[in-house]
């Protein structure tokens, strides 16, 4: 292993040398063909195969995931072992809700900056189609009673106390997408933002259409190099993000009914991120590792910022994270060439754009002297976003970082920010530079 051994061996910079992701597979009926660890393994294998070093030379593997299956405790370690890192490479799992994949990159970068590691594999994985259906505490209590009942009479007594209401299932994914503190569903937080910034249904729907069409264009012109094809046990090949709708149109989306605020809301399945399975990785390296293995550099991870805000307005997280990042790096908004803001909801991205340019918001909520400015929509999510390709929650943060680097190369641009809103009222932003 190349682990730095002296305390003074800290790295001054963190580079992203390569990255790879699986296609994002829309959850259809029932669990998809891959578990979270399967996706992570299939995404990492080709990435590692093309490196000049062996998997066992990694110093650490960090994986973001919110809903691993019960067989995937510390899924980061499960995946590290499955991809052939061997016994000696430590691995862990991080969870910062929708930003878990970005957290994994941040955690890996910190290890490198601290001099604890030189080569880190970091990413996110999620198979939302595998989200379990659970029993509530009443049923769990009853089961405990049943298991400990030895005699026939004790069993009869236990049986008699079983109530049909105990059997009511708890659908984990619905609980997961509901704020545990304020009680609003994620979709309702988007409704709150839409109301605050006066975003119309039509604006949301046309944003959603644009996301689909941009992804279609990126797919047809072969810009999504970061995707590696995967095959399931039935021999079905998955080569691209399959949630995309090339026939997406505003008049079609207008027909959909709101799903969160059913009677008066605007947020529909059509203008929200899809429920999706997928995994995404980046390979982080310090200067020494870049030199030692003569690694090509995709870009530099300059800085990261996390921020907290009102859980009811969690969708504005990107604004709250990007603002201090820009200030710390002394960068005006227009110095950022490209943006990836994760599209949890069309309304939420549009609200972020409004907040950036709203003097009142920037003054009162961010404590700035004036508005940050306007983001040119031609520089934002240029190849579509989660509305079109889905939002596997643990994965998206890692995906937008990887894709932003590819966009910077495609456009020969210098600087970009990948930002994500986080359920529970947080935001994360990463500043990246092409070198």
């Amino acid at each position: 292993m190349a682990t730095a051994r002296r305390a003074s061996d800290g790295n001054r910079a963190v580079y992203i040398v390569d990255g790879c992701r699986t296609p994002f597979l829309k959850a259809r009926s029932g669990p998809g063909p891959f578990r979270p660890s399967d996706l992570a393994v299939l995404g990492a294998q080709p990435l590692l195969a093309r490196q000049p070093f062996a998997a066992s030379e990694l110093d650490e593997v960090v994986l973001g995931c919110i809903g691993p299956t019960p067989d995937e405790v510390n899924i980061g370690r499960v995946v590290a072992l499955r991809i052939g890192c061997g016994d000696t490479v430590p691995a862990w799992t991080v969870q910062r809700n929708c930003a878990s994949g970005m957290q994994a990159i941040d955690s890996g970068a910190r290890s490198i900056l601290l001099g604890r590691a030189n080569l880190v594999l970091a990413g996110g994985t999620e198979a939302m189609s595998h989200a379990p259906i659970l029993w509530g505490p009443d049923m769990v209590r009853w089961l405990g009673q049943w298991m400990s009942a030895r005699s026939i009479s004790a069993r009869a007594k236990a049986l008699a106390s079983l109530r049909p209401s105990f059997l009511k299932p708890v659908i984990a994914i619905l609980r997961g997408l509901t704020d545990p503190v304020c009680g609003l569903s994620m979709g309702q937080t988007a409704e709150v933002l839409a109301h605050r910034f006066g975003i119309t249904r039509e604006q949301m729907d046309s944003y959603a259409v644009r996301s689909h069409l941009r992804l279609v264009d990126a797919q047809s012109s072969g810009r999504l190099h970061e995707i590696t094809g995967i095959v399931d046990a039935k021999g079905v090949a998955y080569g691209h993000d399959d949630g995309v709708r090339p026939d997406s149109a505003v008049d079609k989306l207008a027909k959909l009914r709101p799903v969160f605020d059913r009677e008066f809301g605007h947020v529909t399945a059509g203008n929200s991120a899809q429920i999706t399975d997928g995994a995404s990785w980046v390979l982080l390296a310090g200067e020494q590792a870049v030199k030692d293995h003569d690694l090509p550099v995709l870009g530099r991870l300059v800085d990261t910022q996390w921020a907290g805000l009102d859980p009811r307005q969690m969708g504005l997280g990107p604004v709250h994270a990007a603002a201090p990042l820009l200030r710390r790096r002394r960068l005006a908004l227009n110095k950022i060439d490209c943006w990836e803001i994760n599209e949890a909801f069309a309304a939420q991205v549009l609200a972020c754009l409004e907040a950036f340019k709203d003097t009142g918001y920037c003054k009162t909520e961010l404590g700035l002297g004036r508005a940050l400015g306007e983001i040119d929509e031609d520089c934002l999510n240029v190849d579509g976003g989660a509305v079109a390709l889905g939002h596997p929650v643990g994965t998206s943060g890692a995906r937008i970082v990887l894709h932003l680097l590819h966009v910077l190369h495609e456009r020969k641009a210098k600087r970009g920010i990948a930002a994500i809103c986080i359920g529970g009222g947080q935001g994360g932003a990463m500043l990246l530079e092409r070198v």
Partner: protein
Amino acid sequence: MNAKEQAAIERQFWQLRRDEDNIAWLAIDCPDQSTNTLSAGVLRELSEILDELVRAQPRGLVIGSNKASGFIVGADIREFKDFKDPSETTKMIGSVHAMFSRIEKFSFPTVARIHGFCLGGGLELALACRYRVALDDRKTRLGLPEILLGLHPGFGGTVRSVGQVGVLSAMDLMLTGRSVDARRAKKMGLIDRAVPERHLDRAVRMLITKQPPTAKLNAIKKFANAGISRPLVAWELRRQVAKRAPEQHYPAPYGLIKLWTEHGGDRNTMFRAEAESISQLFVSPTSRNLQRMFFLQERLKSMGRVAGAPVRHVHVVGAGTMGGDIAAWCAMRGMRVTLQDRELKYIAPAIKRALKTYKSRIKDRYHRLAVEDRLNIDLDGSGIAHADVIIEAIVENLDAKRGLFQEIEKRAKPDALIATNTSSIPLDDIAAGMDNGSRLVGVHFFNPVAKMQLIEIIGSPNTDVLQLERAARFAVQIDRQPLPVNSSPGFLINRILSPYLQEAMTMVDDGISASAIDDVACEFGMPVGPIELADTVGLDICLSVGEVLSEKLGRGKVPEILRTLVGQGRLGRKNRHGFYLYKGKRVIRPKRSEPELPLRDIRDRMILRLLNTSVACLREGVVADADLVDVGMVFGTGFAPFRGGPIHYARERGVADIRTRLEGLAKQYGDRFAPDPGWNDLLS
């Protein structure tokens, strides 16, 4: 084990020591052998030890092995050739029976402590103990494989296995020769405990100190062995066996069933009958030929037992049937595999097939997941740079192959083995495009890869000998037998097989029923008939191999019917329509009509063309000697193994006779039957 154990007494094969609890630990360790066998010497020494144990009366006896490879793999096959006189053999077997009965009747408990291979005579010895404990790991295998040598168990195994696990499980072990792991053995009642290494000695001690009651057969198993049910069970067993092995060629399974049917009710007479039956089998031609095959197989394996680093990473280019299956097999044998093809859609079917195979063959889900994870899709060919072995299995197109090898040569590690799985293009033609053509070897696998045990290792005079050795070592590492073959059209197997298949097709062309032809071949002892085999190989492949051969060697034309069928898109089993129709795994053969040609002529037309080509290959030096032709054809094509291979069969039948017969056939059917000059060498 305990520190205060008594000093071991030095012996040649066995070590006996007594621990502080007065338990005797007897361990076998045959010197200068990688595995333990029950040779005459081992048995003699064991007999002396038994005398000593009777005097010493320990608290219990543990029989184990000090060898890492395992317990005991069986009797010493090298001694079988001495068993010429059945009555002498019966006597010798009788003395082993007596010895094992002594162990069985010891007043103190006896435990077999089993790890690794516990086969044949080894399992029979273990069955003579009161208890058996086996190490529960991936290496432990228990079985009675005598049938594979045309024999059945002879050290009381036929009696004790039936008594231990019931007739159905016992016959399954003895009639198929398959081995089981420790868990399966425990489930079927063959052993008392299957435990991990950390509990092995504890389990042994517990059985000796507690002496729990031994497992008894349940009512159903007892009933199956009762006098009134035996004939019915035997009828069913015979019916099962007849599907795989006809009685006239394979006497052993029928002898075994008869033995049990007649004597299953009386242990003592069954022991005697076992000894008599196996003594006869030892001298049967079938067993002699199968024993010879066993040794030839060992010879092939020894060619791959050369020193060198094991292969860890295999890169396969071309995910068709062969490439995909080679990749899947290597991953199962513990290697990391990168599988390359132009597009994902070409790899997908290979992955599907592999995962299906793993699901059916690997029961342990953790092990299966590890194997699945070792098989990686690699569209960019990234694996080339890391692989220890690179195997090309793309379309049979010289330019495509040359281009590919130029690229591979640039990207591969300098010490990587570079190999082609071509079946028809001469090695030198492909190597000509490379900077260092001496690196290229042929590794010719057979379809289906998971079943066919042979790999032809092809070299030309220009090939680096070291690379050929490494290819052979790789073959052994993936549990296959390397056959060294000189590069020449069709190599050995296809060259010999092709005229045999073609003659069968020509007969179909002549109006003889395909089913009748296949039946004749099966009666001769082939595992499948030539017509069905051609369908399985693929008629397009048969055609291309046939064309290459007739172009290069000029003997025998490709039958018209083959061209016609391929022209109609009937490619065989792969698209469900060849000479026959295929529905799932079923073959739909047309009703057999009685052929106008005598069956003997049908047989000789196919088989003699095969023999004639075999002799030609031998004369041309395609392989080094006649034994290699024999073992190659048996393991590469399934040529009737009990006949000992084509050259051996020709010698048994009479070289002069065959040549005369060939001359006759040549007059009747044409030059393709003209006897090869090589027959003269066989005559002298």
